[in-house]
């Protein structure tokens, strides 16, 4: 071909080889870019070649232009390949640089938590709310009438000795039981009633297992045709939800002035499944709450006809439930507010 005779200045092969060599030596994207510009930029070698076209005979110019274009394409290909290689290399080193110790501790917002009494109380409320119980809270400083008299415990009743009472003045006291809430609710509301009354109660007792202030949760159901069987049925359900799906309850006779018949309710020991262990003192049962059929006098005191309505009531110590549930050994722990104790009850 006659084209081959045309002199195009520096050899094409030399330019490509030179570009190749310089591109290979480039250590960064920036250097590679600068090299690329040296060949392909506005002041680069290709531009210089094209500028030299003026000195070439007119008839040779098309062929010359074609050759320069081919050379540009070759160079562009060459640099594209190097750019890709450079990008990959740089990504690799960036990733390597950014490697972290994934086993280092995470950062989190400092969270607090609710007291185990609040948690247990809420858990109990959730169980009974699902069965249709509403929550009613009465005053902590109560009148003698609501705490005792209306609950069938007149002044000379020996049951008043069962609960050593803190008195304020004649007629006023710190409530010894949340049962006082029964009366206040029944005065406001007629049956059907399903009520829970949780709250602080006070007894003048202070030793390893007693605290002068603790919490109770009273439950009351008053409606037509309520029986002792219903009481046990409901408490079975409670025990299964609160302790273990295998929990059972056992009733045994007891005495409270405001219920008749009255029962103590034991729940099968969840720790040993009823076989007997230190927690249940080998009996397989744990005393959890007191209950009974609402005494007719109590209903009468609230203006509820005991010939039409019957009901049951139950009361439990929230601390006791929490102690059983979490294995807490000392009732004092609840009011000492040691943060190491409280920290264990956060979500």
């Amino acid at each position, binding site marked *: 071909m006659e084209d081959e005779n045309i002199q195009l200045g520096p050899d094409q092969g030399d330019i490509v080889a030179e570009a190749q060599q310089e591109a290979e030596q480039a250590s960064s994207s920036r250097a590679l870019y600068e090299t690329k510009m040296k060949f392909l930029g506005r002041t680069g070698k290709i531009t210089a070649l094209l500028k030299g076209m003026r000195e070439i005979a007119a008839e040779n110019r098309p062929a010359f232009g074609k050759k320069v274009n081919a050379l540009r394409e070759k160079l562009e290909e060459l640099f594209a390949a190097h750019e890709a290689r450079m990008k990959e290399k740089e990504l690799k080193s960036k990733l390597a640089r950014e490697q972290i110790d994934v086993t280092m501790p995470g950062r989190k917002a400092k*969270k607090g938590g609710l007291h185990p009494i609040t948690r247990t109380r809420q858990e109990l409320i959730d169980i009974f709310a699902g069965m249709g119980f509403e929550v009613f809270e009465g005053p902590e400083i109560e009148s003698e009438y609501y705490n005792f008299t209306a609950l069938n415990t007149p*002044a000379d009743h020996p*049951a008043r000795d069962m609960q050593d009472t803190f008195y*304020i003045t004649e007629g006023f006291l710190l409530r010894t039981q949340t049962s006082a809430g029964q009366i206040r609710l029944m005065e406001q509301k007629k049956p059907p009633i399903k009520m829970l009354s949780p709250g602080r109660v*006070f007894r003048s007792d202070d030793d390893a297992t007693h605290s002068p202030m603790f919490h109770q949760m009273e439950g009351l159901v008053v409606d037509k045709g309520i029986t002792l*069987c219903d009481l046990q049925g409901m408490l079975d359900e409670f025990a299964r939800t609160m302790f273990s799906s295998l929990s059972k309850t056992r009733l*045994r006779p007891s005495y409270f002035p405001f219920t008749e*018949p009255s029962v103590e309710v034991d729940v099968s020991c969840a720790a040993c499944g009823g076989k007997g262990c230190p927690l249940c003192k080998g009996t397989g049962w744990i005393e959890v709450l007191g209950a009974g059929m609402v005494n007719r006098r109590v209903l009468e005191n609230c203006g509820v006809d005991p010939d039409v309505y019957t009901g049951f009531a139950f009361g439990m110590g929230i601390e006791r439930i929490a102690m059983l549930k979490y294995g807490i050994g000392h009732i004092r722990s609840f009011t000492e507010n040691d*943060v190491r104790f409280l920290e264990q009850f956060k979500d």
Partner: protein
Amino acid sequence: MKVPFSWLKEYVDITVSAEELEEKLFSCGFEVEELIYLGKDVEGVVTGKIVSCEKHPDADRLTVCKVDCGNMGEKQIVTAATNVFAGAIVPIALDGATVKHEGGVQKIKTGKLRGVTSEGMFCSGEELGIGDDFYEGAEVDGILILQKDTPLGVDIRPIVGIDDYIFDIAVTANRPDCQSVLGIAYEVAAVLKVPHGSFLPPCPYEAAPSDVKFTVEVQEPALCPRYIGSYVKDVGIGKSPQWLRRRLALCGMRSVNNIVDITNYVLLEVGQPMHAFDRRFLHGDTVVVRRAKAGEKITTLDEKEFTLTPENLLICDADRPVALAGVMGGLNSEIREDTREVFFEAASFARDSVRKTSRALGQRSDSSARFEKGVYPVFPHFGMLRALSLVDALGCGKPTKNWYLPHFCTLEEPPRKQIKTSYSAIDALLGIHVPKEEVNAILARLGFLIEDMGSDFVAMVPHWREDIDGFPDLAEEVIRMYGYEHITPTFLENATVTHGGLTSAQKEELRFKEVLAGEGYFEAYGYSFYSPKDFDLLRLPEDAPERHAVTVKNPLGEDLSVMRTILAPTMIWNVVRNVRRGNEAGRLFELANVYLAEDLPLVSLPEERKHLSIGLWGEGDFFDLKGAVEAIGEAFGLKFTYCRCEKPFLHPGAAAEVLLGEKSVGWLGELHPEIAEALALERKAFFAELDYPTLMRKARKGIVYRPVPKFPAVERDLAVVVEEKVTCAEVEACILRACKAATKAELFDVYRDARLGAEKKSMAVRITFTPDPAAEKGLSPETVDGFFKKIVGSLEHTLGAHLR
């Protein structure tokens, strides 16, 4: 209530073991708190007769005895005891036996004493755990010498009375009739279904004639509804027989003399407290039961003198008090060794009267304990019969015919209380069907007389069961004997469906606590009462409203005597306790009632208001605590403002009143350094207290949705130089007031420099301008420039600020 097994067996034919009986009692409502076998520590001790005693070849103080142990063979025992002799029958702990020793148990083994084999040990009364009341001679210094007719080679326990169980029974408050051996025996017979006679076994005695006449006058029939007196002549004071002393000892009572022992025995067996007066000291053969005069004095048997009030009931003779009714006899009329005539008293005193007297005087006795639980009016009669039959049986006096009663008492039994009901009423309450034959049989075993009228029946209540007063009581009697295992759980088959759950206020309260927990605070629970000194801790002035507190009349101590009017002291002590235990930093909150009384002493229930108390110590500062308050504000849509305030317990430079509008809702601040130092708190502690009901009243109710503006908000930073006294709140408020589009102004920097001038500071605030939701275009830079100018103008005008 302690009941010996052997005593029960005298009245009930019991064939079950003590352990089985314990279970039976438990099932019918009598929890045995402790079942004690008296012979537990004494194993392998037998009787033996000393055949020969010889001096130990190598030890002066030891004696080598050959002992005939009956069918156990002959044993050689070396002893240091000096009271043994050939022919004596003694207890011998053989190889492998155990005996009591210094409060524990000692194991006996065959061994050599100075080279001579001893196959066991002779026992003293102490080693068997007994005193003279169990077995005569048990308290001698040395070995217990048994009676001559004691069989050889047999277990020692039955012989000395320790092969017995004590049932320590928890008797519920409705069953005072069971505060006695006979009461428990009646229940035992019923639960074991063993035939049983009347409550009181036959009490025969021969009544001698007498000319002596007593008058009994009861001035307070309400406090002493029943009084029976009886005269016993030809009394010979002496020791009681072994069986009686042993029974008293089993129940923890010491023998005194036969007459006094009889009163104690009747107390234990029948449940009737008795008293015996020496007739010589009962002036005028007269008994008057009356209230004490104010300031009147009596000295009781235990030689304690008491000054009385009309609250106290007295037994008096013609001249003077001779006993504190129901509590204790007087020293002036007690039984003495030379007493020849006795006046027995069996009475029923009102339980609250005895309780009040006993508490007020701090004087308790077995008698007062019984009366406090209640002694039914039928019991004095029972008690007197039993006492006189014992006098006769013991031959320690001659009961006489006449009994002395006040004019309103008779010995005739009142008619039985009748309860008419139906078998179906009992079934309906229990929720199961109990066959009527069962109902009848159970009630009959408990002493009821039943008139079966088909579907209805009448139950005639025994006199000693005053707790029974309606068909639910009968239902309880039936089910506790029929067995609670017959109850089949059901789930409210007849009940109406009701809607349950928390009210919205209760839900808000829980959310309130969760917000604080989310801010890193742990919930605390404190006692509702504290010490009056806690007000001093806060350095509250004498007339501070917080000191107007409800107080407990009978607190456990002064530390727990004042109902809280402010929660802060509890929180301060929480922090102190934590720091003392090495918890150097922490955050706590409590949401609990304070008790605010209008009038003291109370004439109506005080107001109970929930307060929020927060405490933070160790890590963090005032603004961390404030952050918690602000978090509550954010969660409940409350716009708090803060102004500097003074509280005697807070750092004067770091104390703020929290306001909602114009109303103060609480305070926050740093504990005053002087108080912190006094409490040895080395690191700063911060506290806050807010009035919860006010917060909740002003809280946003539910979510209020506003459309999102179409155009973005614009932020601009502003730095102004102001006087040092100008507060952040003032700057922010001024900005927001100056321009409606400025929806937020947040301080992000405070800078002080000499170049700014003395007492000056630069405050940098980021202002957010939000376009009106209805606006058709965004905020142009020119518009914002206009706002900015307006704000700067306002700041200059109101706060003397100038742009930096």
